[in-house]
């Protein structure tokens, strides 16, 4: 058990690329921290540096208060779980799990006892004499976890451990990982590119982009109060809608109509170098069918009419895709997010809004529908640096706040 502190940790590769830049992170004892970001954001490199599999170019890494920059992985007392499971193919499940204990020169009885214990926790007892080749993906994953927990290390490091499993099993293993971590109370650093995993698993989530930390916080906080455009776009599924907005005579001109703005935002936008072009961000669930809104709620938002493109009924609610005239919002962050989602080269005409309406809505494809959205929940971003302008003391307060 130990805390892990990264103090201005950077990684420069010999070819001059900087994979990780000045990462500051304090992971408390027993905490479950997720490193998440698109591929190439430096999350795996960061994990490898904690494990000691990559050298740290500058900065300091402390585990349990002790500087470990120059320690070999074997002297750091950490266990790692890999995406490929990395089970030793020539050993049985029992031998795989006993391997770290055998290297630690424990006596035979202790080893047997510890392996049996771990196997019981992970329901591997009946598989102990099999070889990895004869196991399913989920079983291999559990063996890899077993090999990690068996020697009670100071910390677990997990590098996309569930990415090779199929969707159903992944959800199932997610709860296994979560329960195990709670049960053992071991400090855990978990790397994933899947924002759903990040949201559901961690005590805190670290969002990384291009080797730098974007925002650190509990999942809900990142969702409700994203610090910048990248975090806002990365967290959430379906992701946040982004539209260009222009500041004009104290109002915001957007494709959804003119929006009023509150005093605080107005003050923010009065500066000489304040941006005139903004990006408006609205989460799908902050839209609602205008017919289903009571007067009280209606006053907090604004309505617009748009043609309905597609309706996806999810049972509990409806995802409705609306077509909106005008340009798409553009910013470096958004392009990066689109590229990561594999839609970088997919650009239709005009832009689409994804909205999540109540299941009771009678919306049908092809019609023009009046839709309401909540002004208190919208975000405004500066396209030049991605900063969230609606954020005030770490809280997002919408556009109307005074």
């Amino acid at each position, binding site marked *: 058990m130990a805390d892990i502190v990264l103090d201005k940790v950077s990684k420069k590769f010999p070819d001059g690329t900087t994979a990780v830049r000045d990462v500051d992170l304090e992971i408390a004892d027993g905490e479950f921290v997720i490193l998440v970001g698109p591929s190439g954001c430096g999350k795996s490199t960061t994990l*490898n540096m904690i*494990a*000691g*599999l990559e050298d740290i170019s500058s900065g300091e890494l402390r585990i349990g208060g002790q500087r470990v920059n120059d320690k*070999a*992985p*074997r002297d*750091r007392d*950490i*266990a*790692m779980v*890999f*995406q*490929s*499971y*990395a089970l*030793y*193919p*020539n*050993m049985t499940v029992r031998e795989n799990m006993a*391997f*770290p204990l055998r*290297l*630690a020169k424990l006596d035979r009885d202790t080893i047997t006892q510890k392996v049996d214990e771990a196997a019981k926790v992970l329901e591997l007892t009946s598989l102990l004499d099999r*070889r*990895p*080749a*004869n196991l399913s993906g989920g079983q291999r994953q559990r063996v890899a976890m077993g*090999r990690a927990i068996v020697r009670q290390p100071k910390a677990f*490091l997990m590098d996309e451990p569930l990415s090779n499993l199929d969707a159903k099993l992944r959800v199932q293993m997610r709860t296994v990982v979560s329960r195990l971590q709670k049960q053992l109370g071991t400090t855990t650093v978990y790397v994933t590119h899947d924002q759903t995993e990040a949201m559901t698993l961690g005590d805190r989530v670290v969002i990384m982009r291009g080797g730098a930390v974007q925002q650190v916080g509990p999942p809900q906080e990142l969702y409700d109060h994203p610090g910048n455009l990248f975090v806002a776009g990365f967290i959430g599924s379906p992701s946040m809608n982004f539209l260009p907005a222009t500041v004009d005579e104290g109002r915001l001109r957007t494709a959804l109509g003119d929006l009023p703005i509150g005093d605080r935002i107005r003050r923010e936008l009065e500066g000489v170098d304040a941006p005139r072009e903004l990006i408006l961000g609205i989460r799908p669930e902050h839209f609602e069918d205008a017919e289903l809104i009571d007067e009280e709620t209606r006053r907090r938002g604004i309505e617009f009419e748009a043609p309905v493109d597609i309706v996806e009924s999810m049972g509990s609610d409806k995802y409705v895709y609306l077509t909106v005239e005008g340009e798409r919002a553009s910013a470096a962050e958004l392009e990066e997010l689109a590229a990561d989602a594999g839609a970088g080269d997919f650009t239709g005409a005009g832009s689409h809004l994804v909205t999540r309406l109540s299941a009771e809505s009678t919306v049908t494809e092809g019609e023009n529908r009046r839709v309401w959205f909540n002004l208190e929940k919208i975000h405004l971003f500066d396209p030049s640096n991605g900063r969230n302008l609606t954020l005030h003391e770490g809280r997002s307060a919408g556009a109307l706040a005074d």
Partner: protein
Amino acid sequence: MSERTHATPAGADRTDTQTGGRHVAVPRQRAGRRAKPPLSENKRAERKLGWLLCAPAALVMLAVTAYPILYSVWLSLQRFDLRFPAEREFIGLQNYVTVLTNEFWWTAFGVTMLITVVTVAVELVLGMGLALVMHRTLVGRGIVRTAALIPYGIVTVVAAFSWRYAWTPGTGYLANVFSDGAPLTERASSLAIIMLAEIWKTTPFMALLLMAGLALVPEDLLKAASTDGATAWQRFTKVMLPVMKPAILVALLFRTLDAFRVFDNIYVLTAGANETSSVSMIAYNNLIRGLNLGIGSTMSVLIFITVAIIAFVFVKLFGTAAPGSDDGERR
């Protein structure tokens, strides 16, 4: 080896025909072992085509391999000395008795075994080292690999001559390094030089085969081992070696078979003087120089049998070698 390669197409053909008649769309790999349905017209034609396509290669193999082997077996059962052609007659296994009770044969056999065991063992160690270097080198990878492979690229006889001149007193730069005498005129030093030449020549080949094996060890496995607490040596012995065992066995098989037939270096360096002949050497001396087709063929057949036994032992080892037989599912 040729038997194995022949078996594959025939086997694949069979699974094909088993399921083919019933379920044409089923991919080959999925086809389980089911009851044989009657062959469809289509499948039968395909099978015939398969045989026809294999036929030329099979015929060539028969002509250049099977015929000489059988002919030498036939010769080995006769008294057949070209100096006394009139005395040619069938004598059964008499030649084998002659050879196997002959002191020269066993000396040569011992020399050959010694050369085989020592060179292969040393080559394995050096080759593994070289393979690790070539695998790990980050800068100048191409140059390192090319440099390491140069000895293998030189014709054996040419290399052997350069070694001979190097060890010849008066002309050679190595002749007087260890003693004042002529190293190639004494048995122990001659054998050592022969083995040195062999090792120098074929270590790169070993390294090349082992490097292919090294590439099979997943990077994650080594990372996992280091976080599990393994030292570099433990990673090598407990993770790398077991995973690359099949590659090591292939390399050993190739080299052992090769080493057992050692000829060129001995022929050039000592010509078999001072009891440094290998079995190939004395077979050559009897068959080509002595013109004794019967005895020479007998020796050839014995070499063939020994090589076959070595191959058989290795192939048996292969069977149990595959570690948990990793069947692509992981990758």
